[in-house]
């Protein structure tokens, strides 16, 4: 259950460019819901996602996830409990590193000093096969060689693999 309680966000307050993107917005999302948000350009869709994932601190209000108050939790900590895909396919993966290295980083199974094991590789291969893009045979290739669509699919896998 995700709950937003009266969250507000105003960009560039007090200037001519002031933009009130969110104003005391409340929203509750029960488990298992699939939600699509539609709005005109500048309506605040991205701001809403930024607020939930912690890209910035909201001006007011509270954000609760399963009862836990995450309003002040920094982005990198929130990402442990919130998976997220960026609009830009280039932002979600490290181009200079290989597919398996990106997946290993996202999965984070073996502690800070762990190496990628054969078992990990098998698991990555199995999951990549489901994407049906032939990526399972390219584990050791740098992600920078993939197309935008392939990278976004990989990022989706990375967001859900943990």
């Amino acid at each position, binding site marked *: 259950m995700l709950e937003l309680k009266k969250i507000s966000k105003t960009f560039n307050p007090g200037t001519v460019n002031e933009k009130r993107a969110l104003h005391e917005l409340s929203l509750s999302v029960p488990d298992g819901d699939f939600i699509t948000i539609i709005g005109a350009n500048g309506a605040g869709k991205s701001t809403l996602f930024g607020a939930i994932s912690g890209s910035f601190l909201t001006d007011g209000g509270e954000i609760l996830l399963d009862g836990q108050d995450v309003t002040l939790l920094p982005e990198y900590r929130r990402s442990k409990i919130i998976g997220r895909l960026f609009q830009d396919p280039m932002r979600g993966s490290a181009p200079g590193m290989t597919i398996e290295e990106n997946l290993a*980083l*996202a999965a984070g199974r073996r502690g*800070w000093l762990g190496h990628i094991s054969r078992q990990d590789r098998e698991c990555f291969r199995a999951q990549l096969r489901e994407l049906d893009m032939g990526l399972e045979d390219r584990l050791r290739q740098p992600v920078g060689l993939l197309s935008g669509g392939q990278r976004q699919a990989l990022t989706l896998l990375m967001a859900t693999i943990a």
Partner: protein
Amino acid sequence: MDLSSVLGLIQTALELGLICSVTVLALYLSYTMLNVCDLSTDGCFTLGAVTGAVTAMAGHPVLAVFAAMGAGLVSGLVVSVLQTRMGVNSLLAGIIVNTALYSINIAIMDGASLLSLNKTQTVFSLMKTALAGTPLAGQYKLLTALAAVVMIVLFLTLFLRTRMGLAIRATGNNPDMVRSSSINPAMTTTVGLCIAGSFTALSGCLLAQYQKAADINIGQGMVTIALASLLIGSTILGRGGILLRAVGAVLGAVIFRLVYTVALRLDMPAFMLKLVSAVIVVLAISIPYLKTQLPVLRRRMQRKAG
């Protein structure tokens, strides 16, 4: 010039190249992997040299190595705290720490600007005693430097494949992705810079013990020299894996020293070293860029002509 003196020159170049390659490996971590240009390198190198020299003069040449590395680690920690927790620009953080280290280094030398290790035991003299009587006895300097380099290269290749290593590489590559993998990029930057700092200081410590002297200017220009070596290395072995690129960094340092030695023999004055390294860095960074610009230029010329 006879053969033995040529071999002697090559030998010295090899030894100095290996010692300086430890700094190059530090930049391999901070510059290549973490994408941070750590401008405190000069000061940190000197910090290692003087900390090591003072400890060795107190009669602990082996402890000196660890003392130097510890000092370098602290220096790296300060740089990283400035840039990750206090909002100081990363280049500026390095320059500030570099400036501060000048005073600290003189303070460590108790106000002197030169320390002589002529009558002091060093890791090199210990190795000499240990190897006495064996066929390798003459190569004690080379072997000491080589041992240090091999250990650092092995450490780096293992470390950069761990999850922490992957996180450090990803931080240099795409910090957004690191954050969304629930890793704090401030933490990975801190770990990376601390390790790089300890390597740089180790390099300084070894150079001081090697040349039996540490002075306040021992590290001056080191960041440019090391960067030049790193870039030479990456042109030779740039497209390989982590190990190959680390070996390339070492190779770059040795080649740089060899070229420098040859230039000296051709009567280039010693003070030109830093100009030469500056030119190498500029060329190595700009040539790939200029290459991409070349087709545009050519097309423009054609249009003008046509």
